[in-house]
């Protein structure tokens, strides 16, 4: 599972980065046999990745939380439906994406939220302020950039998230799964049920669409950039 090796967050799950799909599949098989603890380990392993993908999709933390929880719940109900053709995370991500796309189609709105706006958002999820602060701190630690660059990065992220929120749900899902979650083409094809060729062309179209959404920002950035 090479895509996971690119994860930019420290592993917090019992599964290490070295765990491969075989181990995950074995854990899911045990869950299928009634080992709830095995499924719990999978939940702990995938909750952050799944939540991150969903929150980028729906643009709302609370909705992302609900969808993530519902994804695990449905995954447990549909354990018998897992045949091992894809990885457990791909299998769960497919459930999550379907739920997120359905939710977006239902509400028919585009959401973005400020990366630093969690504390300002009324009614945010519990610990959002702490999460945002921790995230900012983690990013700061990772990047170790200066204040001016940090401010620029914040603005850039907000613009990207805003542009991502304005995209069509399918395009958004492609970009989230490929560029944010780092899934490979085959995994994305498994989640969306698309042929690889179609997947690539649509992914390129999604990028062009995002470029259109970021055109104004990119033009300004180029003007103000070095």
């Amino acid at each position: 599972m090479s895509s996971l090796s690119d994860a930019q967050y420290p592993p917090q799950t019992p599964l290490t980065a070295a765990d491969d799909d075989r181990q995950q599949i074995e854990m899911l098989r045990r869950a299928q046999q009634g080992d709830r603890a095995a499924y719990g380990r999978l939940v702990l392993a995938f909750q952050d990745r799944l939540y991150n993908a969903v929150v980028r999709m729906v643009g709302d933390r609370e909705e992302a939380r609900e969808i993530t929880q519902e994804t695990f719940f449905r995954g447990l109900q549909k354990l018998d439906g897992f045949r091992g053709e894809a990885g457990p995370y791909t299998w769960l991500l497919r459930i999550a994406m379907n739920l997120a796309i359905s939710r977006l189609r239902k509400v028919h709105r585009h959401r973005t939220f400020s990366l630093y706006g969690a504390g300002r958002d009324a009614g945010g999820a519990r610990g959002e302020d702490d999460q945002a602060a921790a995230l900012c701190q983690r990013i700061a630690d990772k990047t170790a950039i200066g204040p001016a660059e940090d401010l620029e990065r914040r603005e850039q992220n907000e613009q990207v998230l805003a542009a991502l929120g304005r995209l069509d749900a399918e395009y958004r899902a492609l970009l989230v799964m490929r560029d944010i979650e780092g899934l490979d083409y085959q995994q994305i094809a498994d989640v969306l049920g698309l042929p690889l060729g179609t997947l690539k062309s649509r992914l390129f179209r999604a990028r062009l669409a995002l470029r259109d959404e970021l055109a104004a920002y990119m033009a300004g950035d180029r003007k103000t950039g070095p």
Partner: protein
Amino acid sequence: MTEDVEHIYAKLCDYLEGRLQPEERAEIDALLAADPQHAAIMTELAAQRQMLRRLPREQAPADLVDELRSQLERQAILDDAAPVPLPRGLGIGRWSGVLAAAAVVAAAVGLGLIVYSVLPSGRPMITIGPAALPDHRIESAEAADAASDALAQVDMKKAAAAPAEESGAHLRERFAAKGAADKPFSRGDPVQARGGAAHADLGVDNKGDGALAAAFADRAGKPGASAVQSEQAAPVHQHQTTPSYYMVEVVASEPSAAGERIVQYLTANSITWVDQSGGTSQIAQATGLHEGEPASARKDSARTGSAVGAESQRAGQDDKTPFGLPSANGLSTAVAGKTDQPGSRLSGGTDQEARQTLPPGGLAGAGPEARRGAAAQKEKQAADVALANRSEKREAEIPENAARVLQARQQTFAAGVPSAAGPGQPVADRVILARNMTERQIVELTGEMLRADVRNLNMNIVRPQAESAQQAQVAQTDVARDSAAGSGPGQVQGQRRRLTDALDEQAVSFRGGGAATSPPAAAAPARIVPAETMRAAATAPADRAELAQQAGQRSTVTPADRDMLAQQAPAPGESRVDCLIIVRSAAVSQEPPAAAESRAVGAPAAPPTPPATTAPATNPAR
């Protein structure tokens, strides 16, 4: 072309991600080098991809797992508490909903029936008579209505197929073919079936249990066995002690024509009626009072309407009058053919039918003792009639007794024995019981009679509303037409005026029923008492006094009254009452010609009016 675009896009996607082979990448690099704009786009896309990858990652809420665990626990609890799925046939489906609705409807109907049977009904009773005679009532008003409906349906079809005259003759022939009166009815005879149904209605049985009786049992919602009771079984009755009926007395010099007109109206309006003349003719036959009885009356007595035979069979109880009342004036014993109990089969329906109640061969065929007994009874009855008439006349002369006398007259009329007739006189030329008429129909009937070419017509419409005569809720309308005034019988011939016009030109007055406390005011203007007021007076004591006051006044019909009457179209739920129509000959009437005397337009032949309501009717409009 589309495929080429898709292929190029796919290749560019791989180019951005560095998945192309070196030669493919070199090819694209060469193209981008030739086109700086495209190269700039690819650069932007690569930068955009890096921006996406650099987006901070969100961590799942700390309580996500706890929430998931709680959700799983709730689901587990719900699963445990979930009822075991029922088999498909027992599950809640659309049929269960239908059944539930049907059960609710059935419960409501059942409750309604219970309440209806327990509570006193406000419907007009079929029996005619005072409340003080509780033992002579039909079994059930509902059953009577059901039987009448059933009979009406059958007989209306017959009436449509054959004229009434033929129908009556046919019936007589059938009865005659059946032989002696004591011969039990055979099964399957439709006439007997009707009789069976009617007897079932009344709680008596002539042992005719034909299909119609069964149909009636079905309609009445009762088992046939319970509906058809034994002959000796005492009829059970319940509510309805207040008499509510109309009595229309038609006094005409041509009773036959008047009767024909009445029958035409009833038939045209699909009103179930029955000729009760059999009772009177039967009395006449038994008592010898039929001397001088018009042939038309005897002929008419055999005719029946849509309910032919039903009422006569219903009245076949030896101790019951057609309305469940005891016979009046002691004229009942001679014709008690079925039993030895005193009582008149007053409403036998047809002469032939009446003869069936006598011993084979009639009185002539009876033994010497029977003939002597019959002769003695005739003498006694004649004496009783004369005594009763004299007594009634005396009492009627006293205003305070007028209502009571009227009540007595109504009872005797209901029994088919008019009190005004003396010995040797026909009691009535024709007695017709019309069932379930609306008030408007009754008024229309009077209009028809007024338009008819009937000489010396005088009509009394009497509707007692009181529970007793003393309460004086008796309103009587005299509709007198001077057909002979100036132009003779043809005066109104050809006139087809509306009822309102007819009423407007006729003297219409209401008289007080002889209330002891409010004798009729001779000159006070009066109004037609609206039907609503009449109905209300039957229940509201306060209105009764007002009604009595109104009834004590007199005047002509006002336009408002006419409109009210004209608009009283029969409507669902409108109260319907039975109407006893008595056609009498003016030549034999013993009643004083009060109405004729009261007409402003002089009438050579004064139509008589009943002696009980002796207040002279005047017509101020004339």
